[in-house]
């Protein structure tokens, strides 16, 4: 369970192109033997590769509806982004009632739990007990990105549980009281727009054991739900208001803080420069930072169906109509806090030992200088620098670079040609020249074979990478 990841590769579909390797924010993907390979301890499950893969070979492992069979009583925990999938005139009541007709016994809105987190955030801002600037913990991909690439900001992350986890605890308690069933017989299933949430459930970095049992993707729920939405009689199930539902879109969480001085950044490639500026204390005057790995917020989640811009508009309308929800009284801090301390990941480090790391760094620079600096990706690494690093770490070979390979082949061929050219008068080759020609031919053959054996070797090695 050390490196559980929801994002995986469908090897059959992968064509070995360079889309995913060049978009990965943690340089966690390499193409080896014509197939993409995910370096497990670097992957943050942001889903960027799922979004950019034109062969649809990157997938998020989520649960199927079969998971409902494991429990006597099942509660659906819809992410607020689910509300945005069906048009702007639908109501939350309709969607929630629909969920109770496709196999769930009850529902608990994550949007309602989000309102508890908003209330807690306001309370702690008032008390002045949040770090400055305070970084939202709601997007699990961003939290993981910080542990991998911006560890000095770990202490700026507010240590509140994700709304999903809060919802699960509340839903469980309610179900226990209502049904008298023990915890093991109650299934709490998240309806997820997000691959990283699956990892939050199976291998949380915040809680010891998640109260959520599994997650079904919005994509997998969509058609079943669409089938019943037309005729469903809406029951009075929706508890979340404008504030909670708005968490589905960029800026929604920040609205809940009631602050004026906040920053909202969406899209993982936009998040990175802002985190970097924060690390340099350039944004110390910002009180609260809301980040989402997905463009436009959770409505942009890789497992959604609707176009994220359309969905954003739907959410605005649905949230407006929902209006104010029942006020939340005093919140108990400890119910909503991380149980574990976040730790820095060492996935990007060259070596545990500083001297060894420095030596490797110097070698990397030397190797990198020999490369074309085109970052073409043909070698399977995202950039020349990344290949140079792989070479020094022992996971790749400089000849994986087609330019270096070509130059090498050209030099050998030229030398062979020159030997031949010097005997065009018909004179015989000396024994030294024959030996050299043999040696060069052998090298050419080796280079040709290198590609295959080298790749195979690398696949085995990368497993430990």
């Amino acid at each position, binding site marked *: 369970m050390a490196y559980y990841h929801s994002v995986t590769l469908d090897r059959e579909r992968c064509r070995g192109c360079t889309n995913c390797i060049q978009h990965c924010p943690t340089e966690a993907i390499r193409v080896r033997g014509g197939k993409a390979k995910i370096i497990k301890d670097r992957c943050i499950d942001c889903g960027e590769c799922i979004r950019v893969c034109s062969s649809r070979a990157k997938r998020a492992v989520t649960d199927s509806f079969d998971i409902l069979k494991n429990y006597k009583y099942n509660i659906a925990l819809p992410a607020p982004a689910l509300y945005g999938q069906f048009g702007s005139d639908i109501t939350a009541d309709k969607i929630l009632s629909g969920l109770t007709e496709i196999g769930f016994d009850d529902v608990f809105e994550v949007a309602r739990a989000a309102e508890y987190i908003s209330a807690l955030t306001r309370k702690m801002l008032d008390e002045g007990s949040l770090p400055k600037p305070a970084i939202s913990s709601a997007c699990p991909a961003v939290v993981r990105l910080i542990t991998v*690439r911006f*560890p*000095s900001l*770990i202490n700026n992350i507010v240590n509140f549980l994700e709304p999903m986890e809060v919802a699960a605890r509340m839903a469980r308690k309610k179900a226990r009281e209502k049904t008298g069933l023990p915890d093991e017989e109650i299934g709490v299933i998240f309806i997820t727009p997000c691959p990283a949430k699956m990892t939050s459930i199976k291998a949380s970095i915040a809680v010891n054991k998640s109260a959520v049992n599994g997650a079904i993707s919005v994509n997998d729920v969509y058609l079943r739900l669409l089938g019943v939405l037309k005729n469903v009689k809406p029951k009075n199930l929706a508890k979340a208001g404008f504030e909670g539902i708005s968490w589905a879109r960029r800026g929604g969480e920040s609205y809940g803080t009631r602050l004026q001085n906040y920053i909202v950044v969406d899209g993982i490639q936009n998040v990175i420069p802002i985190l*970097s500026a924060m*690390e*340099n*204390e350039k944004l110390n005057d910002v009180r609260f930072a809301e980040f989402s790995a997905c463009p436009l917020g959770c409505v942009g989640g890789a497992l959604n169906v609707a176009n994220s811009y359309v969905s954003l508009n739907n959410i605005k309308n649905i949230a407006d109509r929902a209006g104010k929800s029942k006020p939340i009284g005093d919140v108990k801090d400890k119910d909503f806090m991380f149980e574990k301390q976040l730790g*820095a990941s*060492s996935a*990007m*480090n*060259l*070596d*545990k030992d*500083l001297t060894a*790391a*420095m030596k490797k*760094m*110097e070698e990397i620079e030397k190797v990198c200088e020999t490369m074309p600096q085109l970052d073409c990706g043909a070698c399977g690494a995202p950039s020349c620098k990344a290949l140079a690093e792989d070479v020094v770490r022992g996971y790749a070979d400089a000849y994986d670079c087609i330019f270096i390979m070509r130059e090498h082949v050209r030099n050998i061929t030229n030398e062979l040609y020159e030997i031949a050219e010097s005997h065009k008068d018909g004179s015989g080759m000396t024994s030294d020249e024959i030996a050299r020609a043999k040696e060069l031919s052998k090298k050419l053959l080796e280079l040709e074979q290198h590609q295959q054996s080298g790749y195979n070797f690398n696949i085995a090695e990368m497993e430990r990478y």
Partner: protein
Amino acid sequence: MLKHYDISGTDFSVAGEASSNFKVVLKKLGISPDIVRRVSIAMYEAEINTVVHGGGGECDAEVLDGCVKIVFKDDGPGIENVELAMQEGYSTASDTVRELGFGAGMGLPNIKKYTDDMKIETQVGVGTKITLIVNL
């Protein structure tokens, strides 16, 4: 482990590139997050000074046994009164530079705050050399 950077004095869009590049290097080396943060803040401030006041120059950044040492050198106007320049809020930055959000007079004080040692060698009309040390 020496990294050399040329600091442009005319292209403001690349100001900060040396410090952000060196930050990546330090992280890869596994230097502790707190030290990386202190080095990057101090180095960034010094880099901006080299651009804004020094008219560009060069930088040598080095990880040594026990410390990180960074030297910025420029052939700019030099600092007339170092003591004054070290005061928080004092700045000789032009209005143009201030409009870009710089020139708050926190550069040198911040460098002092985040480093374990700093040394300024400067001569009016000749240039400035500033050495930053952060202990590991």
